């Protein structure tokens, strides 16, 4: 493999609404976080459940043991729903807050429950880059794979935020996951993400949907340049190299 590319070992998607999934070319992309024990499934958010589902699908496709992968979870807002509920309680001065909601509002809730559910002692990153969250997650994966890691699980997710938080249109809840590696032959390859200046636009859709065109290309075994961010003053792109194409 070319040292300057990343190998895609597996990928997966999960949508809050499976009808939306179908319009984007994904079947069987509903929310089924079987990795979570039932008692945790009841107390975790849509964001966490979507992220877990996509992550699990990517690991299955990559035939990877989930506990062996460092993880990068990237999301503009993370636990937007739990945060909304807590801010409403705070506005009403309805104290004490729920301790469970409080610890489930941290940005590393999804990555934390993932590491507990699969028993992973590997590092867990929880990051965000607003409209560029997915592209910057790819850059973080790139830096890890060129320094300390041989494989990583990258998960990009976003649930639909309340209109008190976000008035810029409704964001479709969606999660994508990629198992990325170095040194694997016969796998689709990703070049280093790069930026191209563009006319800045308002972000109207979920930042997590920025992963959809890339995953569509992987599904179809295509090669070429694909945008991996939306809006912003610069667009992020990645070149996909598929031997089969």
């Amino acid at each position, binding site marked *: 493999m070319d040292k300057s590319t990343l190998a895609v070992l597996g990928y997966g998607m999960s949508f809050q609404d499976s009808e939306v999934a179908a319009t984007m070319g994904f079947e069987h992309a509903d929310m089924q976080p079987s990795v979570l024990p039932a008692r945790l499934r009841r107390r975790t958010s849509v964001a966490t459940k979507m992220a877990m589902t996509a992550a699990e699908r990517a690991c299955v496709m990559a035939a990877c043991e989930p506990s062996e992968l460092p993880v990068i979870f990237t999301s503009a807002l993370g636990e937007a729903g739990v*945060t909304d509920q807590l801010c409403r309680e705070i*506005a009403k001065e309805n*104290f004490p807050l729920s*301790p469970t909601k409080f610890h489930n509002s941290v*940005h*590393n809730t999804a990555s*934390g429950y993932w590491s507990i559910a699969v028993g992973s002692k590997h590092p867990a990153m929880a990051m965000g*880059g607003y409209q560029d*969250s997915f592209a910057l997650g790819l850059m973080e994966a790139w830096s890890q794979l060129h320094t300390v890691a041989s494989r990583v699980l990258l998960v990009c997710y976003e649930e639909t935020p309340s209109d*008190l938080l976000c008035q810029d249109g409704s964001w479709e809840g969606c999660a994508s996951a990629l198992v990325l590696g170095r040194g694997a032959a016969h796998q689709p390859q990703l070049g280093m993400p790069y930026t191209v200046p563009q006319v800045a636009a308002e972000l109207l859709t979920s930042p997590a949907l920025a992963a959809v065109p890339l995953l569509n290309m992987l599904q179809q075994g295509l090669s070429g340049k694909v945008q991996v961010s939306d809006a912003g003053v610069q667009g992020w792109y990645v070149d996909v190299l598929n031997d089969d194409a």
Partner: protein
Amino acid sequence: MKAVNITAYSAVTACGLGCKRLLHALFEQVTCLHKPYLIQPDFPIYTGEIREVLPEVQPDLNIYNSRNARIALAALDCEASAFREAVATAVQRYGAERVGVIIGTSTSGIYETERSYQHHAQHGVVAESFDMQHQHAWVATADFLKHELQLSGICYGISTACSSSGKAIAAGQRMIESGLCDAMVVGGVDSMCHLTIHGFHSLELTAPTPCTPLDQHRNGISLGEGAGLLLLEGDGAEKAMARLVGYGESSDAHHMTAPHPEGAGSKQAMAIALHRAGLDAHTIDYVNLHATGTALNDQSEMRAMAALFDCDTRCSATKGLTGHTLGAAGAIEAIIALLALEHQFIPGTCGLTEIDSEFTHAIVSEPIHEQCIKYVMSNNFGFGGNNVSLIFSTCNQQEGSHG
């Protein structure tokens, strides 16, 4: 691991604006925790609030205006804008597109979100000044600094609770080693808010008195706020103050809020940091502990210390001075470790009167001045069992280069 140079750092804490004020507080060892002013809950707590007037965000960046952004701005502007000037020099040397920014935070600008929700509860509409993307989103403070410093390299936010900014420093090293940037502004910024004050209280983790980490009678945390910023540079650096020679990260895979009882994850993070630095545990001259002042955190961390280090490895906790600054703690405590290197002293443990009888380590209670400090470690552990450990050295040390 490829060591990276630290060419500037700046800290804003309850001890004051700038590293000189922090250093003074470390030497004098007088707590900067007081009864709360900004947010006054109906239960007793002490907090490490910044009482100085914070600078105002310039009008063309007003969409970013939040307490978090103003605290970050104070870290750029304090001490004659020394940090801002160091970054400007790096931009001249490498080009703006080769300088990135990664900021850890646990709160981002949620203080403004809370106010917007209060406004909505009273008036039926969100506050006009509220800007979710530029105040509340996880990248907001990093994005603000990117514009303030006119950088165009990689920019993102990290939020892994109390390990956030320790991980931002590690991520900055990776960006330089992998060649994606030549210099990185890294660190953490956190600000007081109802969510953390009432949230930690709901978990019964806040102390009614100033926190006393490592003490037999410790009874919880005191929240703080602040910013810690570091400038990392690769081989192109002209003059370095210190070097980051190792980092380790791990997950407990145990519990969302409770640390592993034996500190397995913390031990793993410290061991990986030592391995990457090519150092044996006995070469570490000082460990700045995470030591929040809760019964379980301090016990877990000291058990990890006992498993890895000899009893004479000196360590201390500094949250009795600054409070627990959560997402900024990793960067602020990294800077305390760097001040220990630069000024050749071991910080004490403010508030400590009776060391927990289980802890057999060389816990330093009063600051010690001496002349042979070469390697220092800083630990931070967060919710989700998220652990990070960093090792810094003076500039003239030669380490191995494992991993």
